[in-house]
């Protein structure tokens, strides 16, 4: 397997050094692995902190900046960050208005952020938390670690970020984040397995002519394997799985997200099919975002996330944002 890397052990540090060089508007602490917007702490503003394993870029470091995250904590590849990182981030971005942790529902992320919250609170920082768990492929939480956090993370970070930028207090920003999560659902498919730098070969065997349905973002197989389907059939399946779980009464934000190795040509084509299914199911679309936002290294495939929004959430979604990975209105 060929990768554009030096050695597996320094992949994350090397990427952070490169990111620092490309984005002088961010402070990238390579040694301690914290990415902070340069003007933090912003007086009176709630600090938004997210983090998770590396390998999902631009999530989360690429979403640091005005209108979105205040800081991000990248872990090793597909491994959650450690509490020390979040505590450092909290100290850097807290203006006295408190911080909000945005946590994807994976055991490691939850445990490390919980430990960090305790430590940060010991240091006098007020901490709120939003747990993102939007993946409808995980059904029965009695027998699993619960629904994974996937594409909805972007919606939570953007919309809660806009609320924080307006100077809304921690309880409000936290409530907005939770509202977004409660109204968002995702479903993902993989056309190829992931190759992590540490392992150097695909994490599971996925023959040509087959696809995995119901994947997360860590290169693990999904819920079932089927013979390869057309883009239209996949859209029927993915959107169908979401709408089996939610009946939107309001217009939805649509995220058609690439997993890392699927070209935009295919993603746009897939989006056309997603929009067709939504029209057939009489779901109104407010805004659509297509691209590689919540990725899984070199996995081919895509996920669909729908989030139903009222006027207020849509206004916050449309608010200006300026980050390496998402930028509009400013």
């Amino acid at each position, binding site marked *: 397997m060929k990768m554009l890397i030096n050695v*597996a052990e320094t992949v994350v540090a090397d990427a952070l050094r490169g990111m620092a060089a490309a984005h002088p508007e961010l402070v990238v602490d390579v040694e301690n692995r914290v990415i902070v917007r340069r003007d933090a702490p912003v007086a009176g503003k709630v600090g938004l902190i997210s983090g998770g*394993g590396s390998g999902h870029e631009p999530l989360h470091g690429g979403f640091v900046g005005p209108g979105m995250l205040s800081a991000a904590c990248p*872990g*090793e*590849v*597909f*491994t*959650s*960050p*450690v*509490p*020390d990182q979040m505590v450092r981030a909290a100290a850097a971005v807290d203006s006295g208005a408190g911080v909000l942790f945005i946590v994807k529902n*994976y*055991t*490691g992320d939850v*445990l*490390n952020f919980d*430990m960090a919250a305790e430590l940060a609170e010991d240091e006098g920082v007020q901490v709120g938390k939003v747990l993102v768990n939007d993946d409808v*492929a*995980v059904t029965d939480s009695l*027998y*699993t*670690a619960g629904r*994974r956090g996937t594409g909805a993370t972007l919606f939570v970070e953007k919309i809660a970020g806009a609320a924080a930028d307006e100077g809304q207090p921690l309880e409000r920003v936290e409530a907005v984040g939770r509202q977004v999560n409660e109204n968002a659902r995702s479903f993902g498919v993989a056309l190829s397995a*992931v190759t*992590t730098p*540490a*392992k150097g070969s695909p*994490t*599971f065997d996925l023959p040509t002519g087959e696809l995995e349905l119901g994947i*997360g973002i*860590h*290169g*693990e*197989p999904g*819920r079932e394997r089927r013979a390869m389907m057309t883009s239209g059939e996949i859209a029927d399946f993915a959107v169908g799985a979401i709408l089996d779980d939610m009946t939107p009464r309001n217009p939805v934000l649509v995220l058609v997200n690439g997993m890392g190795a699927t070209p935009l040509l295919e993603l746009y084509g897939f989006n056309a099919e997603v929009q067709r299914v939504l029209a057939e199911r009489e779901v109104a679309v407010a805004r659509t975002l297509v691209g590689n936002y919540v990725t899984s290294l070199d996995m081919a495939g895509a996920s669909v996330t729908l989030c139903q929004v009222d006027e207020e959430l849509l206004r916050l979604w449309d608010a200006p944002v300026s980050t390496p990975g998402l930028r509009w209105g400013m």
Partner: protein
Amino acid sequence: MLDADFFRRWMTATAASVDREAENLTALDSPIGDADHGSNLQRGFTAVTAALEKEQPQTPGAVLILAGRQLISTVGGASGPLYGTLLRRTGKALGDAAEVGAEQLAQALRTGVDAVMALGGAAPGDATMLDALVPAVEALGDGFAAAATAAREGAVATTPMQARKGRASYLGERSIGHQDPGATSSALLVEALVEASDE
């Protein structure tokens, strides 16, 4: 009686064994997880041995508390907090004593395992590290060798189980037929007790 030297040897032996088995742990993790259990634990235990050398803790409890803190600060994922909590809580239960008996260690480890259960919300039978640790603690009264055998058997016994916690749980029934990487690394930790006591 077991002194701080014994506990240092225990941690060093675990680190050596994690080094040896890292690829195997990662291979076990790859069909059901994200193929990094070996490299993550390796990073953590390398930090543990370095910290033990630098800080020279003088009591059994202090050795384990320092080791646990290092794991939490360097491993990440679920393994960092879970293994870190196991060692920290076991160390705290040992208190300030300069030497502890086997019975005290067994009791302290039970406290540590209970803390892991509370933190991760898992129980034996969920295909996690607890399937090695719980039988090991129960067998500890019969000596380290018995505990090591129980841990190894417990790890192997996760193969036919359906994972209910952690990342493997997302696979549902497809997790059946795979030995749990966490239970396997837990067996290494318990087996290292035998190695530490032989010296």
